[in-house]
């Protein structure tokens, strides 16, 4: 979707505000939410692409006002309700519905290390790559209404394939319960001037990771 989250290249957000000696979490609730998010993920009811999309569809005015963890909270609640793990009324009241069954946590303390281990998106599937390093390609000018990782600022622009990362889960389908549909993922280099015209310097470039179906040969 051409959502507010797709903000690469926008002006008007002002200077970057940094904080000296920044803590890992700025409040205990951020830490608890961060942990809840991972513990609930262990139920296997959603994937990372669907979680990203759950944050992307937060209404734009709210999205911009929310902090990072407030977006996580909104996305998590939406996903838990959708998955049937909790009901709206339970979230509202903070109490289990009368007579609700008591589950056994999907994530035991002893299992935490396993859950925080890597969870690769690379799939061991043999698919012949359409592109090779050095190929000139164009990012397609597409405007899907669902989840996509093809940033708007690169669409329609020409670049060069730098590297084939192998066959990876495809977020555009995986986010919507349409399966992993893995395909080749490439690192593609776009010259700054191709993306931004004369506003970019002659020695600026942006590299994006783009799935094969985002690209057409040039």
């Amino acid at each position, binding site marked *: 979707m051409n959502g507010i989250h797709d903000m690469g290249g926008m002006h008007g957000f002002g200077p970057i505000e940094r904080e000296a000696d920044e803590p890992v979490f700025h409040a205990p609730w951020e830490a608890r939410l961060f942990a809840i998010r991972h*513990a609930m993920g262990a*139920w296997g009811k959603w994937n990372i692409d669907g979680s990203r999309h759950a944050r992307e569809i937060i209404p734009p005015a709210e999205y911009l006002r929310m902090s990072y963890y*407030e977006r996580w909270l909104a996305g998590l609640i939406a996903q838990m*309700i959708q998955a049937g793990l909790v009901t709206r009324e339970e979230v509202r009241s903070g109490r289990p519905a009368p007579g609700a069954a008591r589950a056994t946590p999907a994530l035991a303390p002893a299992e935490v290390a396993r859950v925080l281990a890597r969870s690769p998106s690379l799939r061991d599937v043999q698919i012949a790559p359409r592109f090779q390093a050095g190929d000139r390609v164009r990012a397609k000018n597409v405007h899907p209404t669902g989840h996509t*990782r093809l*940033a708007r600022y690169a669409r329609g622009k020409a670049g060069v394939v730098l590297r084939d990362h192998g066959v990876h889960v495809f977020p555009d389908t995986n986010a919507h319960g349409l399966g992993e549909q893995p395909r080749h993922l490439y690192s593609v280099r776009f010259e700054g001037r191709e993306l931004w015209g004369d506003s970019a310097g002659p020695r600026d470039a942006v590299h*994006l990771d783009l799935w094969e179906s985002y690209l057409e040969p040039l």
Partner: protein
Amino acid sequence: MPHDHDHDAEFTEVPSDPALRVKALESLLVEKGLVDPAALDAIIDTYERKIGPRNGARIVARAWTDPAYKQRLLSDATAAIAELGHLGRQGEHMVAVENTARVHNLVVCTLCSCYPWPVLGLPPVWYKSSPYRSRAVIDPRGVLREFGLDLGDEVEVRVWDSTSEMRYLVLPERPPGTEGLSEDALAGLVTRDAMIGVAKVPPPVKGGRP
């Protein structure tokens, strides 16, 4: 693809008191048997105490002192970082990019806030902010100047927009005046910002501890 679910406005408005809402949520989930509070404690402990930029700094220092390791890091960062035990969630597939006198690399995630947790810890607020996400790709030199780094026109700036599960670690230039330092001492010099690419590693302070 159509939106397959809509949010309740009730839960997508900025919460008036997120601390209260998260507390109520945890208590609900514990009561329903969906989460174990001890597991939450263990997760928080991991990111507050075990994972952080010192992991990345160790990788950088090793690459600075061990040419064969540096070679492995640049050709297959996932494997090279696995050697030191620093893979994990949000660091599934790693790429290391080397800063030199002629090329400066900078990492961003314009679409959300992807960041290599196992080597750098959780990202700082500025990395997740709209100003950084919006500007890093269109005005990288302006962003770097805001961080105090004014690169010459002869330097190429490469911005890596983390649009997939590949995660990027910048291998900064080893600063001058560090020839005699041990790997540990070098690791102590390496900053988080240098591994994101918004800074260089500062030379050791004369007479001070590195």
